[in-house]
């Protein structure tokens, strides 16, 4: 059996990649993809703990989390579609109309 720390290590790696992506990339699409990555790292954590403790709670939470991620992605993409229609691109640096 693969030890729990391996799963947690992988999850932490995925999360860090996602976080780096959010802070580094300017494109909105990539932003959402990175958020998905971070959410899925959390899902991996939940499932790993669930399997390790032999309960189903974690897996149920993971299902919730996936549904939530889908909803969030749908809204996020809809917003970016609207922005794209106005600006012809989705550059987060330039979306600063309400700055000061």
């Amino acid at each position: 059996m693969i030890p729990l720390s391996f799963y947690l290590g992988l999850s932490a790696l995925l999360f860090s990649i996602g976080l780096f992506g959010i802070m580094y990339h300017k494109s909105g699409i990539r932003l959402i993809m990175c958020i998905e990555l971070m959410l899925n790292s959390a899902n991996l954590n939940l499932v790993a703990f669930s399997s390790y403790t032999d309960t189903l709670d974690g897996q149920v939470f993971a299902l919730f989390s996936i549904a939530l991620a889908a909803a969030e992605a749908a809204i996020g993409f809809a917003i970016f579609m609207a922005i794209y229609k106005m600006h012809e691109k989705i550059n987060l640096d330039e979306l600063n109309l309400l700055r000061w």
Partner: protein
Amino acid sequence: MALENLAFLIPVLPALAFVITFFFGKKMPSGGAIIPILSIAASFIISLLITLGLLANPEEVVSQSIPWFAMLNLGVLIDPLAAVMLTMVSFVSLLIHIYAVGYMAHDPAKPRYFAETSLFTAAMLALILSDNIIQLFVSWELVGLCSYLLIGFWFEKPSAAAAAKKAFLTTRVGDVMFLTGIIVLTTDLLKLAGGIPEGGYLLRFNEIFSYIPQLSALEANLFGLKVSHLTIITLLFFGGAVGKSGQFPLHVWLPDAMEGPTTVSALIHAATMVTAGVYLVARTFPMFLAAPDSLLVVAYVGGFTALFAATMGIVMNDIKRVLAFSTISQLGYMMLGLGVGAAIGMEAVGISLFHLVNHAFFKALLFLCAGSVIHAVGTHDMRELGGVAKVMPITAITMTAAALALAGIGIPGTSIGTSGFFSKDAIIESAYLFGEHSGNWLPYGFSIAAALLTSVYIFRLIFMTFTGKPRSNYGGHESPASMTVPLAILAVFALVFGGLTQTGFMQFLEETFSNNFVNLDLGRLAVLGGYELVQSASAEPTFILWLPILVALIGFGISFVLYYLKAVDLGVLASEKNPIYKLLYRRYYQHEIFTEFFSIGIVYGVVAFLAQLVDVLIDSIVESISIVTVAAGEALKRLQTGVVQTYAAVVVAGVSLLIILIKLITEVL
């Protein structure tokens, strides 16, 4: 009894008439005048019936009340004092309303006029039958408001607007004093009663009166003098009365108040406004009687005002202005009549109210006659009139009757005489008694001198207006019947009312404070106030009895010689070259002193300076706060870059820091 349950309708009906006339008057004939007339007539009938019932049984007063909130109540109290006032006010107001139908016939704003006079009457009636001091104060303010609206009725005229403002502000000085008095009284009563009593209304007059001995015992230190709280309260009340009743030095609004229609002047001067102050003092008379020195102040102020106003009355050329000064002077007599209560006790309320009612009749008549003359001839200035008797015989006769009543013509010792004779002589004789008893002769001297001047100025007015040859070209005709009939009715009252009722009236009013509502031992209260009442009135010397009528006849003689026969040419004497004439004609420079120097110069100056101070001091503090805030905002707004990544980086850094912190803390602990 069913009639008692209708008592609350007395002020409510005219108030309803105000609403109806105000909103629907335009669609009715003659501006909806019929509604106020009918409602005031109904009020008059109810008042009259209650008064008649009370006459038969003065012990059983009408007294009803319902809770309002906390310790306050709304109530109706009709004791002899209120009954007399109610009947007089509703009657005089009714006649004035009928007269106004003719007088205001050509005015486009009739609905507003009738609505406001109706509210005016309602407020005064509500004031009279209040059974607690708060309700009285509320109506008192309402009367003030209506007077403001009506004096400024022709508000397009700048002088009318200014007069309305002046009246409002001047009476406000008194109102503030009255309110202060109520506040002091309430605080003291709450202290004495130990909080709000269950089921009792602390500010009802019977409750207030029952606390008089304790109130009188409370002492305050004012400028090193020990003063009874009761003296403070009563003097503050008197301050309110001074403002409302045009006593010196707050009388300045009254002569200007004739900027409104003449009928409004008649209402203000006779029925609804200026008598409120006298009524307030009469209503709280037991408190005045138990308050050391208060009645002396009332007597001196009243006496002085009577003379002071009369001296100005003799030189005025405007017919309404003469009458206005005459009102101030007569109100001075009424206050003097109350003040001499220091010597004659409860009788003072009787004679003062007797004069008030008689004065209401003949003063309303004088104003309505003046209005009739002005309506027909179109000028107020007596120098342009003359010989009006030929064109307006009814007005001339009725006005002469009123003048006789004002001058107080009659034969002492009999019941022959005009109304004013009985009441004014009673006051002057009481003032004599007061002087003899307490050594305060000054009020008596004032009242005799004022009686002489009264006679001079009123007959001067009669002779200048009605006799001789016209001094200018005026058309003119007798007024219509709706105007002359009220004149005739009032003239009858001015001539015979006093003679018919003289003894009964005063006895009736002396019962005011001993009935099922309040039962006070006024003799004991007078001891508290330190007044020695005259026990057995010794008959005054015959000379004293005849002196008032003598000076009135002398006054008539002077006017007859100067203004009818024109035997002496007044030329230089009656011009601005004569310093005394100039002083009087300029009204003792009151406008210059009170208005321009005191009000505009000092009060306005101080207020403007303080406003400036507020601007500089307070505003600079407020402004510096705002400047700091704005500058901080300018500096800190750079943090909001608007780039999502920056925010994400800050969040991550924050969370990381937090985790490290928690880790550190848990390690240390």
